[in-house]
């Protein structure tokens, strides 16, 4: 032990903390745990792998005229979003729930006592990472899918109307799911509980609609995140009983905003 290092003034109090420094901390935290790399790997494998699997197994010759008419080569290349949304949902939940499970939250909040600022910093870093990864892999999945799709099946190109928009929205969708999961995680605080809630919203809610009849499915289904992704965001051919791409995207942004608002309220109000 060196006494010199204990003398006050060894470091000077400079600047304090703010959004920028809190975001730097969150970025350093995110990249220093293994789970982040694993999630990104699963996300990449899911998006690219399923695009190849689905598109390589499209047999134009044996498809019915109705199937041919509704075949949307853009939407089909994003089959991997089913896995991708779950991967980033898990990441979004872990960003906050591992802090509670490990006790790290106490150290974090001692360093950044303004809790809304902390959650905003977490959300910003999570959004940046998932958006960049999402967009890169959305373009990758689209390119891989079109590459393995065999003629004479019609191919999509980025120059066709609506295709670039669909690819961009496909890349943004998992980031929005990650933010929804972060908000849920801030409320639920337990990893298993938060991930269950994400799975429930993404996969179980649509199943509950199934026995309720077509009219309810049509009216309510279009507001389900996974169906928005499939039928509104990534679809180039218009489908019935669905929100427009813009409305669907706006709806998901609204969900994320609500989840984060409730998460902020819960984090600020409850003892840590």
């Amino acid at each position: 032990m060196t006494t010199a290092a204990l003398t006050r003034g060894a470091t000077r109090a400079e600047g304090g903390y703010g959004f920028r420094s809190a975001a730097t901390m969150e970025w350093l935290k995110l990249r220093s745990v293994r789970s982040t790399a694993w999630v990104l790997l699963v996300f990449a494998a899911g998006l690219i792998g399923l695009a190849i699997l689905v598109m390589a197994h499209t047999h134009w010759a044996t498809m019915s005229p109705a199937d041919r008419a509704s075949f949307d080569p853009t939407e089909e290349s994003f089959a991997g979003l089913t896995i991708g949304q779950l991967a980033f949902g898990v990441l979004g939940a872990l960003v906050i729930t591992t802090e509670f499970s490990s006790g790290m939250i106490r150290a974090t909040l001692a360093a950044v006592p303004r809790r809304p600022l902390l959650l905003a910093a977490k959300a910003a870093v999570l959004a940046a990472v998932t958006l960049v990864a999402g967009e890169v892999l959305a373009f990758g999945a689209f390119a891989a899918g079109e590459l393995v799709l065999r003629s004479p099946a019609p191919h999509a190109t980025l120059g066709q109307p609506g295709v670039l928009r669909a690819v961009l929205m496909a890349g943004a969708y998992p980031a929005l799911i990650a933010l929804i999961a972060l908000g849920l995680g801030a409320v639920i605080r337990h990893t298993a509980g938060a991930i269950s809630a994400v799975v429930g919203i993404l996969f179980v809610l649509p199943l509950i609609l199934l026995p309720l009849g077509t009219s309810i499915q049509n009216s309510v289904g279009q507001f389900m995140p996974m169906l928005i992704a499939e039928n509104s965001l990534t679809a180039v051919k218009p489908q019935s009983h669905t929100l427009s791409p813009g409305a669907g995207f706006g709806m998901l942004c609204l969900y994320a905003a609500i989840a984060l608002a409730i998460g902020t309220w819960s984090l600020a109000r409850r003892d840590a």
Partner: protein
Amino acid sequence: MIEARGLVKRYGPTTAVDHLSFDVRPGTVTGFLGPNGAGKSTTMRMMLGLDRPDAGTVRINGKDYRDLRSPLHEVGALLEAKAFHPGRTARAHLTALAASNNIPRRRVNDVLGITGLDKAADRRAGKFSLGMAQRLGIAAALLGDPAVLVLDEPVNGLDPEGIRWIRNLLKNLAAHGRTVLVSSHLISEVAQTADQLIVIGQGRLLAQTTVAELSARSNSLEEAFFQLTEGSTEYSASNIAYQGSPS
């Protein structure tokens, strides 16, 4: 300087902290004593703005913790061992915390050196022994070179050499003019480091005194402590006997 005034914290029907007021002064080590469940940890969490008091205030250098501009420069805290992500290395943990308050990176190496963790710095903290985890917690507390230190049972899990190390560390920190508050449920342990004492039981202040004054009250320091805390332990001997007998 830490000033608690009329602190109250309730969990449902139980009152964990009951109108607690005390001062912790700089330049000396203050022991925060009380039997298990006396409310020491709850009080410390309220100091750090982690738990919100139901009534009363606790101020650090005249401010509410949540209003501190650069918290790690003003207060260093060790509230529980292993308050870190098990998958992160000690260095990554400290680097992230340092970044939050704009503390230069070289300070991470400094505190790793002070706590003797240099060689373990790049190992995953989840593999640390309790003693090493405590050292990492202390390293984090020292990061911002704070004027106030709040340590909850810092000797837990340390071997005799580690205990001696922490005693010297705390005395040194106080000698340099810092405010040092250390909780314990063992009077004999605290007496070796602290001069000032705050004794609580069932959330209430039993005494704000000095080690010298308390030991003068009875044959031994321990005896004096037992007399003071009598009736405010969670499970007194008579309670245990009662629970053990068939009804």
